[in-house]
């Protein structure tokens, strides 16, 4: 292990492309810090896939690692085959909310159902940031965006709850003000088996914050902090009272046979029977 942590040790010699104040700097750094604290001095035990969107850019090409940068919404199917064929590697998917639970939603649900042995980290900025701030499936009710100029008339999707319902082995949600909790969660998730999902509510000051009326990044972070309630607190609340709150914490940790375990057990059995 290198003496002190530096994200540069795990990155190509390129500058991250994100806007000033973007939460993805923190997400990228926190992930690498978790990797460092687990004792990995490089990313040679990891294979990354990602889709299209700002969060998807974190591993590709910035991580000094094997990264497969796929199409919009399509990071999970290649991650599935890569994990099946390279079962000894940690396969980690980075994607935004539009990528993972918008266009790619069905892959997300089916990967959880199969208990596919991958870790999906979703940066949820509640908007399509890269394309300029259009409404997303995660945009808060009534929030103005470029395609909902009078406020969103749709209800947002709760990706964490959905992952639990679909059969995920581990689900957690944090925000960019819960950096330590997030780091510990990533460390734990890397070491668990099966389908693991961490949602990171992250600020997009450029395409979301300024349109919904936040003065600056600080105000957005304050909103995350003051608006977050724990999973436990949410359990005791009525649905209408918790609407609009950010529920943070661990939603589930469950052990059941994973896709890799099932497929390799089948291979062994079929080959034995000839």
């Amino acid at each position: 292990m290198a003496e002190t942590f530096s994200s540069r040790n795990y990155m190509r010699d390129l500058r991250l492309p994100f806007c000033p104040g973007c939460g993805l700097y923190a997400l990228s750094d926190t992930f690498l810090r978790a990797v460092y604290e687990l004792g990995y001095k490089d990313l040679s035990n990891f294979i990354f896939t990602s889709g299209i969107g700002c969060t998807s850019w974190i591993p590709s090409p910035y991580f000094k690692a094997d990264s497969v940068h796929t199409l919009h919404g399509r990071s999970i199917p290649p991650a599935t085959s890569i994990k099946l064929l390279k079962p000894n590697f940690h396969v980690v998917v980075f994607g935004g909310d539009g990528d993972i639970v918008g266009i790619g939603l069905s892959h997300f649900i089916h990967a959880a159902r199969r208990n596919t042995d991958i870790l999906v980290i979703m940066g949820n900025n509640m908007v399509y940031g890269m394309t300029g701030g259009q409404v997303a499936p995660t945009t808060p009710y009534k929030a103005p965006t470029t395609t909902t100029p009078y406020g969103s008339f749709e209800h947002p999707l709760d990706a964490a709850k959905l992952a639990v319902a679909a059969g995920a082995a581990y689900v957690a949600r944090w925000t960019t003000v819960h950096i330590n909790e997030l780091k510990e969660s990533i460390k734990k998730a890397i070491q668990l088996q099966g389908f693991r999902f961490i949602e990171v509510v992250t600020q997009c000051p450029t395409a979301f914050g300024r349109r919904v009326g936040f003065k600056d990044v600080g105000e957005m972070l304050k909103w995350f902090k003051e608006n977050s309630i724990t999973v436990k607190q949410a359990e005791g609340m009525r649905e209408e009272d918790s609407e609009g709150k950010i529920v943070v914490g661990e939603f589930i940790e469950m052990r059941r046979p994973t896709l890799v375990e099932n497929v390799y057990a089948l291979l062994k059995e079929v080959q034995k029977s000839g």
Partner: protein
Amino acid sequence: MPIRNEKRCHKVSSKTFFWQGNEACVEAAIVAGCRFFAGYPISPANEISEYMAVRLPKVGGIFMQMEDEIASIGAVMGASWCGVKAMTATSGPGFSLMQETIGWGFMTETPCVVVDVQRVGPGTGQATKAAQGDVMQARWGTHGDYSAIVLSPNSVQEMFELTIRAFNLAEKYRTPVMVLTDEIIAHLREQVAIPPLEKIEIINRRKPNAEDKIFFGLENVAPMPSVGEGFNVAVTASTHDEYGVRFTADPKVHRRMLEAINNKIKKNVNEIAEVETHNVDNCKVGIVSFGCTSRAVYEAVEAAEAKRIKTGHVRLKTIWPFPEKQIRLLAESAERIIVPEMNLGQLYYEVKRVACSSEVVPLNRIGGGEMITPEEILAEILKGE
């Protein structure tokens, strides 16, 4: 739940089998080294998935039925980047859904095989009936500039041979290769003679040396690392340089990379494009055909020659890249060229473009999977008399 133990398992060896086209496709893929298959149910390609699900685990391969065609082709691409030969099979509607990812495959130079068992379209069309309407989709189905390799078998024997060839071309040129077949060949049962396995040529992709850094965009085909080998390979279908690093702002990088991935196909047309020819340099009437339709052409040509009409035939085993040279040769002697196909005219326009000195005549039939008969082709040949 009782699990049916499927006993159907023949080890391919050098003998004669009685196979369905879809079954020959599976056995050929396994001989070629395919060890990963992902697919989604669709008629008339289902038998390929079903046979694969039985056969692959027996040879240590992995079969996955995915949630849709987009996931299937995505999983195939991921498998290929693990160094594993991979394939999917589908029909028109599923082929349409796969197009974006097939484009990703061209741009990232990912070898894989896509079998399209053509059915009547567009839309849901006639799901269980043969057609040849995907000639242009196989060539131009995804957006942007690329060169596709598309093979077209006309018998079960050739389904076996061309599926192996598809894998070989995919590996050699690092590109998706399409096997464009149809419901008729896929469901036909015929004898297939398997040559001694050691005599079948199997090509594997070129792997990089430890010190190699360039993995993309070479006209003579860059070596391909796998993920997990320590090369830190960045794979992206965004415009990237030879090292794989994204460069979306520079027009020069894009031009350079696209020129390379197109030239690796274009400059090797003579090697890639296979045709079967009959009497091309000494005929009055010529025929250009492919796939199931060509089976009727053989009989029509024989009947025409019995009537002392010199008839030439070019049968395309490779539709794309288009074998212009042989069509030009045919056009030099044939006054009329007939292009029979089970669509409203697709290959016809390509033949017309190349054989501009001859009169090119379409002969089309769509719907119900009904083939164009030898009599109809003969009648078209005789029209010139």
